[in-house]
């Protein structure tokens, strides 16, 4: 699971009012993947992602230092910054682990990089 996906996923267990963000418990993380860097795309994504949640996600996997606390000003011109963002949202992969609903503590498994968000019948 890439962190861009994590940034959008929310718990949808019945009765839960705020299921976002899902906490990450990772047992295997891969930082070696390579995805083509598209600066324009990253610029468009920055305003659409939840920066605090991205920071939290990095902290949960022990990589908090990969990004600065705040989004830099004029990030459109800061290639170094954009590359850092690109690496964190597009390339870091949670291979094995779980996503935990903040309210119900229901755990969703991540295997082979794929989060399984299926609910049981009684949770729908």
């Amino acid at each position, binding site marked *: 699971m890439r962190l861009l996906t994590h940034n959008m996923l929310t718990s949808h267990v019945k009765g839960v009012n705020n299921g976002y963000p899902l906490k990450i418990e990772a047992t295997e993380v891969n930082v070696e993947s390579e995805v083509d860097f598209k600066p324009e795309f990253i610029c468009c994504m920055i305003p659409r992602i939840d920066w605090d949640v991205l920071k939290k996600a990095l902290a949960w996997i022990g990589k908090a230092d990969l990004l600065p606390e705040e989004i830099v000003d004029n990030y459109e011109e800061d290639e170094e910054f954009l590359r850092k963002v690109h690496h964190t949202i597009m390339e870091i992969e949670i291979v094995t682990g779980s996503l935990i609903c903040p309210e119900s503590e229901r755990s969703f498994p991540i295997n*082979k990089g794929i989060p399984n968000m299926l609910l049981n019948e009684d949770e729908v």
Partner: protein
Amino acid sequence: MMEGLSKKQMKKWKSILLKLLADGLQAGTEPSKTLAVGNGGIHNGVCPTKLLEVLNAYGEIEKFSVIPKKSYVIITYTSVESAESIFKNVQGTDIEKSDGGPNATLYFYYLNTEINPDSQQKAIHLKPQGLHIYEDFITEKEERLLINTIEQDLMKQSKQCAQSVLKHRQVLHYGYKFQYGTNDVDLNDPMAKEDIPEHVSGVIEKVMETELWEGKPDQCTVNKYEPGHGIPFHVDNPDAFTTSISSLSLGSSIVFEMRHPIGNVFTLLLKPRSLLTLTGEARYTWTHGIKPKKTDIVHDSAANSEAIIHRGVRWSLTLRKVKDKTSKTESGPPMVDTQDAVEIERRHVHGVYNKIASHFASTREKPWPKVVEFLHSLSPHSLVLDIGCGSGRYLRTEDTNHFIFGCDRSSSLIDICQEKHPFVFVSDGLNVPMKNDYFDACICIAVIHHYFTAERRLSAIKEIVRLLRKGGKALIQVWAAEQVYKNKHSAYLNKQSVNTNPLVENLQTLKVDCTGDQEQKVCSLPIHKNRNHFAQQDMFVPWKLKNSPTQAPTNTHYRFYHVFKEGELEQLCRSIDNCTLEKSYYDNGNWAAIITKDL
């Protein structure tokens, strides 16, 4: 060779020439007594009488033929000189259209072979089995009384509450209240049933006398059609209503059309005070509808001519009987609750896809061009969600303008996607774990036809609308019940099956245990014959599993499908409050709809 025509007009003249030649007419500039008059046809809105006034001025007419469904007419003068005169003098001039549209420009062509316009006519289509018409079913006095009472009730309704869901026709319900969207009646709602008023029960008594009804109608829908209004093609819900549907027409004539899944079309002029009753195939197999037009073209077979008639205001009083849901169903899928539906889908949708994943993926590599076209039409850097992405054929991001995520109910299919595209997750289409109002676009291709009930199919579309940001758009595509449409058959049908329609009775059935409550229920549906026309809408479609392309199949798996009739997908989309249906079309055996989320 033709002075007086502008460059633009010459271009138009040539394009019509090509059409005439394509129809087998030897059209050209070699003078002859016979001419084709391009844009002078009834289908172009030109009144034949008015056109004749113009043509008569140039000489004595030997023969004048209006060709059904064509925008040209054919005229033979008694002399070549008359033909030459009109060819020269009226070429490229305008004539008024009788539907009030912009003028038609007439173009002339000499025709050099003796042609028989009668041979152009298609064979009269066979009347659908189960279609019954009674003309003058009520008297003019009874008609006036009904119209007055209906108008009073419509006035009352518009004062009491907001206009009905339907944006075009005005509608009233007597008896049970009809629910658009699921197209049925909520038997559990105590407010749902009101008494049938006297003016309608009078009609019902008369309808019972025709002996075409089992039981008595208890639901009545009144539709008021202003000129220009129509009703999209549909079959009345086979689960909610019984075997007969009757409709009484008041006020004005209208052309009523029926379409069979294998391509036949049947039209009929419904006159005021006539009663139309649909049973059997006319009720369950043929779809019916009314085109939204202000005029209709009627064919007078005695005079072998066609005429334009202008529609007036028409009211239709449609009678139905609500089905008792505890009784055995005669036609259509069994009534099941959510638990059963979930279980059937588990066994016969994602359960099967999990088993056939790699074989399936190898047959689904080619993307549908119109889906690709939809994706290309999105603004740069749009965020898209592919719900039910299967093996991921639309999940490319290399040379695309947009960024796409995928989700599917089948973990085996997502495993296959993940290799090429890591932005995927396993999820149910009815409950996607993402926030409201987020995505710029969604696609949902070949998914919704797998849900067992109309409610679940509607919920799937509502979920898509929830996920879209305001102004976002979605493309939904489903398998069509009609594998032939407008005379073209889909790539799915094999050559042998093109002209044969399998009967439901001749198909094998598959029984599925539904163990929702303590009571063991069994549902039984036919097994579809692959590459053939669909015999009914709900069935199991076999998949012969092969471990490799060269090996023989090892196992057969059955997937549940509900194929959509014309108008059905549009009806579902239109019933959702905060979304608008932008476009719908037929694409090689599928129905597709593009919707946007309202601002």
